[in-house]
């Protein structure tokens, strides 16, 4: 019993370590889409990481960069690890972000996480200037498939009002801070709009 509990404790942390290591690489060298990066696990408090350091062979390459804390991606609560482990093999939801360079990143996330929090917890380029209050449009995402777009509850006036100001608005645009993951959205793929191109000075003359 004791040993099985320690396995359940270690596994999420292992993911977390992998996830953190990948974050320190330049983004072009970062994990491609086939590496799952469970965002919920990325937000484990530093306490658990240090315990992992003492017990895991993977810790040697772990860098001591300041911890990122992200209060809104739910880490498993004490005692929930077993359920969590099951989730890893079963009930986690997946969402893929395609960044402006066309690189895609797939994350395993929990029900209830919103796309802004997921993107920020994973260092994707999404500013979220108003902190998810539906007041800035800097978390604009484009849902790539109509079927998924239809499964997201319709935007409220507030969201549509901000979308009206978003750059590169499309028929399937949404604000990342307003899209909350749920079972029906498992497998969702969203694109981050490319705001700027590589402009040339001559373009301005």
């Amino acid at each position, binding site marked *: 019993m004791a040993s099985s509990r320690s396995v359940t404790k270690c596994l999420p942390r292992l993911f977390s370590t992998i996830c953190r290591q990948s*974050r320190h690489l*330049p*983004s*072009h060298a*970062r994990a491609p889409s086939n590496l799952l990066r469970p965002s919920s696990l990325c937000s484990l408090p530093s306490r658990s990481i240090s315990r992992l350091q003492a017990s895991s062979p993977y810790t040697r390459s772990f860098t001591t960069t*300041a911890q*990122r*804390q*992200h*209060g*809104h991606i739910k880490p498993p609560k004490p005692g929930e690890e077993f359920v969590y482990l099951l989730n890893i093999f079963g009930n986690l939801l997946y969402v893929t972000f395609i*960044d402006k*360079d066309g*690189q895609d990143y797939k994350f395993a996330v929990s029900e209830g996480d919103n796309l802004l*929090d997921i993107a*920020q917890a994973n*260092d994707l*380029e999404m*500013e*979220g*200037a*108003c*902190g*998810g*209050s*539906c*007041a*800035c*449009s*800097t978390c604009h995402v484009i849902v790539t498939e109509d079927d998924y777009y239809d499964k997201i509850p319709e935007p409220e*006036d*507030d969201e*549509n*009002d*901000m979308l*009206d*100001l978003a*750059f*590169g*608005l*499309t028929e399937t645009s949404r604000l990342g*801070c307003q899209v909350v993951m749920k079972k029906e959205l498992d497998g969702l793929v969203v694109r981050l709009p490319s*705001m*700027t*191109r*590589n*402009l*040339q*000075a001559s*373009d*301005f*003359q």
Partner: protein
Amino acid sequence: MSLLAGSRTSRRVLSWKPAVRRGHGRCKNLSTVSPTPRNPDASSPFRMAIVGSGPAGFYTASRVLSKLPQAKIDMYEALPVPFGLVRHGVAPDHPEVKNCQDRFDEIASSPNFTFVGNVTVGDSSQPGRHCTVELQSLMRHYDSILLAYGAAEDKKLGIFGESTLTGIYSAREFVGWYNGLPDCTNLHPDLTRGEDAVIIGQGNVALDVARMLLEDIDTLRKTDITEHALSRLAESRVKRVHIVGRRGPMQVSNLPLYDFIEPFLPLRQALNVTYQAAFTIKEARELMKLPDVAFHPVNRTLIPQDLKSLPRASKRLMEVLLKGTPDADPLETSKSWSLDSCLSPKHFLARSDSPDSVASTEFDVTALADPFDPKSRVEKTGEAIILPSDIVLRSVGYKSVPLPGFVEAGIQFDERRGIVCNDGFGRVTRLVSDSDASSSARQQVPGLYCAGWLKRGPTGVIASTMQDAFTTGDAITQDWLAGASFLGSHEGSSRAHGWEGVKEELGLDQARRVVTWDQWKMIDTVERSRGEAQGKEREKFTNVADMLAVLD
């Protein structure tokens, strides 16, 4: 309200594309401080001064810090308190918009970032316990300077009565007054002169100001609006607000929201970029929702009968205007407002019993060649109408001004557009003629960059200012990594000493007056506790002496 307040941490890991080398170095003699050509060395230290602590300064800093780990940035701010228009412009009843301050706080916590508050760059006219640094001094001590000092003045109408009659206020000053901008503390607008207020201009600032005049005072009490504004607004007699535009509801302001890509018409069309209406739908909807405030129906003939064919943003905005306030009748509510179209201000008329006071505004009636064409020409019809105006608020746009020292630094200022001449990416440029004046060309002024309202003109929300700042941040890092010419007094690395060097030149007495980030946090804490006592988010200090007194 913020879901993320206090929890977000720095998070940018951005991809980097190989820098393209541009023809730098050709303008070596443009400034009095000769630029230093550098060997491209990605790791050599990079010292940058930022002038202005608004969104443009902070977002550019964040981009540069994330791409150049060796960068050391010093941000100079004229006031002891940071954040520019986020603190002194954004309406008090929009606290969620100010959440970007959390991100700025994060940026400021970088060990490579120093806040140099209470220091004006260029302008030595500031009195008292203030510190002034000349632009030339910055040029001696930095590799690069980012000009991001926004727009400190506003446009005038240039019509009779504007500067002679009392009761006519600049919306910029009115906003500064209710938001605690020290320069505007003494505006003391008289809101008891009568019931009719006329706001000239139909931008978002006009709508913000209208909302302040119409909103329930008890709602405002819970915001961070200044106490002096609350007490005047509580006494206000204003009941009827006219927001007056020279064009119609279908016409949009001159500049698109994302005007930093304006040269890319085809791209803009391909991406379905919308032009920004002078005001945005969120702000219009907010006014429609104010309790006990009615909207006088908009002129129906200026809006197409069939809205279906309109682009999405315009269609939705027109729907809001046409719906108006169905549950509130102007005859029954205590306050009301209207959007008055096709009226161009002609002159102000004085009261017969008080010839110094404004009584009304005369407008030329204009006609649109095609009322439904967003770009329609507008002409005067020869008719005029008069609107009663106990108070007038002029809200026709902000205006940037050049800094003393620009000429010496080789920086050109476009007076018409109110911007520092730049290449659209934020590189400061100047027009240089051949010796025989037969031809001229735009050249980059090495090491100098601009961002935000000073770069694009005084339009755009925080989202567009942010994108624009990122563009400038990319240009700076691209140039640095490509080995382009920057500032620097002599060749070789580590020549720039940044704030330490500037401080030495300033002398102890001046340098003592500088406000650090930690000191700003002390001011912040006191403001918050003053607010708490009154059930508000914060009670701002409205003059510099009071801000500094916290630090004594």
